């Protein structure tokens, strides 16, 4: 039909295919490697963009469907009839996007059918699941007449027309429940959501914001399609829509600020924190600016002002959903969630795919009352449907352009996935520099005990000193520093060339280079008295290994410097004192672990190792020495250990 020669449409479509291509590859990567490899989610922030945007905002963007359906079929404002079909189609596609986003985000999506049969009515998410399911069905039925009309199927069309009112009322009821139940979801997150966002009226706020979003989304769509299809904007319609949007926006602002005042949380607004800035930005672009633009007489006449207002409003309310869904969650330890590029790409891909489906329906089915304009010159058909003959088309059709976009997108997607996408956590995103070969020599230096390695320049090697060996300079710490790694020595110790696979091809996610600690795992032993991780952090990563592991041989704990080495804590630790500062503890208290070990570890190691024959690692366990010091059982407690179970 039309659009074949509309460059705006063709290019838009190619761009959409490009995004879909990138997203498809990233999505495949997510299912192969898991959520950790594709998202920036952590245990502190388990929900992110896919819930906040794809699900929460997707549902809200779809709100145009029930708002317009109510306006036309319940309130009989017939002049809005022109936007019913596009609004219902948007809503349907919005819900399809929700389901796709959900499938991406669920850890075990193959169990998504379970809420249908295993009812858990106490769960807000159970209610959401049912509403999505039912409303998706209702929307499909509401949109069905358009398809039947397009395919000229008269009888089902008449049947559906008779059901319209029932469907519309069911749809409004379900939407009311559903929009608000997304707010109910976060009532359980009282301990997680920032007080500026957590509110007992979250269900109401979600419902009102959904109505505002629905109206502004329809405005946006109307403007976008008139731009895309080069039609005159429907002015009286836009006038009414913006007026309604302004009213709902003002109601929304009143509710949010009133709720803050009522809960005595207004103070948070002025604390100048990240959260308060986010709140002001979000409320500003979601409601204040749009309401202002829609109410200002001068701005109301301007195409651009209305478009700006509606787009800002949609963006701001989507941000509201994303904030509640993840961005405004209080992260333990001050870590905030910032979506990874891969996550953003997948969300964009879902939207782009839905936009493509939207364009497909708009061009082939009577979605707009006034059909898109027919191109003014005749394009010969490429295919005769009766004889099923293909006449051939232009050598580079718009289908070609779309396919090219998709292919290019997939290539970019592979590149993105390969570039190790979860880039939002600092450190892990930085690439590990490739190791390079250097010549080293061991030198003995006083007063530092053990050996030190000296890097030799090319001239020094040429001079031919003794004991030169090749080693690798490895930057596994990702901190810009490198550490000398005696590759040959490792190879020999692990059993010659057959042992390459020990370190290479270890297939570690996010980490192409195998970290020293991956092999020297005993440094992570759970009952290690020595806080290795703390020392690594304090001494700046792998570069520091040699500070303590100076023996020049295998870098195990057994061969490391003792804590009381003059180079380290020589002055802090007394090897003779058994327990210092005990007097500061109230009687009956066990000394803290660190305190105990700083006074005791060297003592035990020197006194007990020969005497008891206990090997070094086991000395790190308190009970190795204190076998006879376990606290006497309290009466009535330990006896309960094995319970009688009926």
């Amino acid at each position, binding site marked *: 039909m039309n659009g074949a020669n509309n460059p705006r449409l063709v290019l838009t479509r190619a761009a959409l295919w490009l995004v879909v291509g990138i997203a498809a590859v990233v999505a495949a990567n997510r299912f192969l490697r898991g*959520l950790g490899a594709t998202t920036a989610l952590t245990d502190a922030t388990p929900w992110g963009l896919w819930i906040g945007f794809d699900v929460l905002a997707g549902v809200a963007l779809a709100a145009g469907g029930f708002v317009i359906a109510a306006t036309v079929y319940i309130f009989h404002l017939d002049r809005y009839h022109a936007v019913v079909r596009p609004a219902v189609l948007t809503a349907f596609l919005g819900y399809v996007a929700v389901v796709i986003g959900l499938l991406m985000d669920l850890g075990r999506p193959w169990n998504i059918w379970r809420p249908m049969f295993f009812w858990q009515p106490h769960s807000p998410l159970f209610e959401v699941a049912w509403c999505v399911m039912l409303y998706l069905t209702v929307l499909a039925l509401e949109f069905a007449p358009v398809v039947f009309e397009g395919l000229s199927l008269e009888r089902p069309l008449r049947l559906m027309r008779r059901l319209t009112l029932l469907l519309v009322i069911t749809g409004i009821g379900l939407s009311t429940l559903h929009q608000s139940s997304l707010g109910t979801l976060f009532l359980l997150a009282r301990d997680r959501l920032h007080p500026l966002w957590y509110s007992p009226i979250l269900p109401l706020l979600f419902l009102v914001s959904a109505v505002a979003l629905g109206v502004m989304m329809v405005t946006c769509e109307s403007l976008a399609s008139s731009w895309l299809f080069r039609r005159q904007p429907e002015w009286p319609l836009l006038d009414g829509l913006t007026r309604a949007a302004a009213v709902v926006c003002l109601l929304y602002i009143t509710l949010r600020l009133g709720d803050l005042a009522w809960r005595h949380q207004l103070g948070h607004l002025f604390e100048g924190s990240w959260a308060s800035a986010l709140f002001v930005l979000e409320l500003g672009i979601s409601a204040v600016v749009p309401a202002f633009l829609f109410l200002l007489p001068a701005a109301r006449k301007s195409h651009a002002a209305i478009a700006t207002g509606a787009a800002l409003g949609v963006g701001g309310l989507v941000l509201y959903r994303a904030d509640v869904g993840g961005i405004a969650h209080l992260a333990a330890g001050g870590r905030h969630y910032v979506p990874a590029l891969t996550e953003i790409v997948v969300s964009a891909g879902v939207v782009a795919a839905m936009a493509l489906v939207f364009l497909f329906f708009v061009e082939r089915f009577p979605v707009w009352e006034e059909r898109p304009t027919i191109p003014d010159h005749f394009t010969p058909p490429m295919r005769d449907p009766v004889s099923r003959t293909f006449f051939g088309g232009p050598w580079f059709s718009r289908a070609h352009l779309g396919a090219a976009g998709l292919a290019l997108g997939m290539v970019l997607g592979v590149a993105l996935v390969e570039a190790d996408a979860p880039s939002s956590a600092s450190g892990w995103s930085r690439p590990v520099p490739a190791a390079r070969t250097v010549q080293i020599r061991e030198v003995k230096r006083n007063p530092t005990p053990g050996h030190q390695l000296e890097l030799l320049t090319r001239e020094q090697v040429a001079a031919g000193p003794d004991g030169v060996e090749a080693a690798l300079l490895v930057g596994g710490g990702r901190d810009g520093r490198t550490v000398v790694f005696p590759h040959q020595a490792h190879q020999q110790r692990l059993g010659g060339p057959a042992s390459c696979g020990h370190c290479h091809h270890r297939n570690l996610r996010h980490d192409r280079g195998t970290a020293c600690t991956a092999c020297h795992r005993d440094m992570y032993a759970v009952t290690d008295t020595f806080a290795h991780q703390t020392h690594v952090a304090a001494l700046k990563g792998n570069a520091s290994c040699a500070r303590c592991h100076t023996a020049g041989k295998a870098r195990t704990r057994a061969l490391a410097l003792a804590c009381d080495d003059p180079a380290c804590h020589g002055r802090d630790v007394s090897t003779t004192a058994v327990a210092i500062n005990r007097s500061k503890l109230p009687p009956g208290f066990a000394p803290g672990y660190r305190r105990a070990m700083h006074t005791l570890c060297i003592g035990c190691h020197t006194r007990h190792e020969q005497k008891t024959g206990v090997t070094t690692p086991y000395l790190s366990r308190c009970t190795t020495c204190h076998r006879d010091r376990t606290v006497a059982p309290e009466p009535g407690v330990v006896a309960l250990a094995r319970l009688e179970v009926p």
Partner: protein
Amino acid sequence: MSHFAILTDVTRCIGCEACVEACQKTNGTGSDVPHRWQPDPNALSSSRWTTLAQTREGRFVRVHCRHCLDPSCVAACPVGAMRRTPEGAVVYDAEICMGCRYCMIACPFRMTRYEWSSAVPKVRKCILCYQKVMSGELEQPACTAACPSKATVFGEREALLAEARRRLAAEPARYIQHIWGEHEVGGTSVLYLSDVSLDEAGWPRTLGDRPRPRLAREVLGTVPWTFAGVAAACYGVHWTLERRRKVAAAEHPPEEDNGGER
């Protein structure tokens, strides 16, 4: 009926992490490897279902699932993968789980962890060694059995509460006179005694005594009525406007009047 519980006395913990080691061995969790989402291998993670937090004063506080009496995770789960057993342990069934992670959002203590590195991930948290204790394989959870100083003990909740009160009364100067977990979020099966504030060691002041699921339960109870009310209101408005239009059409047959438009 018996009710499993754990009492942890912070003043007795020497921080040896024997509980952590025993838990990891018993539950086969694997070792702690740092990840992007796990910068600190000593923190609670999918391979570390219990760990020790340190207070500013240097005390060690065990961190693991509190097994709430009215658990938010169970209320949140849309498929019933999180379940509170009659014995009070909150357990998890990975076969049913659809991986929505709503339990993680809902937990007021943030004790649930996820296997982010896996393509078939599970929610991970302390399950009180429920299956093993019930089958008789273990006398009591691995962590309490391993504790060398009996700082953390297993028993019946009522008996442990009585024991906690006995300790508070016997040595009033040694403790803050509060049993953490007796009333917080409606009561938990994991109880704590301490001589220092646990506000920043897993028991924030903001918790309160209200069970979290009640927050949503009140709203969810109104669902059928909301639906019926909205549907009835819609039909009522539709019927009224439709009738008004018909009456108007009968009175002024030629004029096309735009019904309820303002």
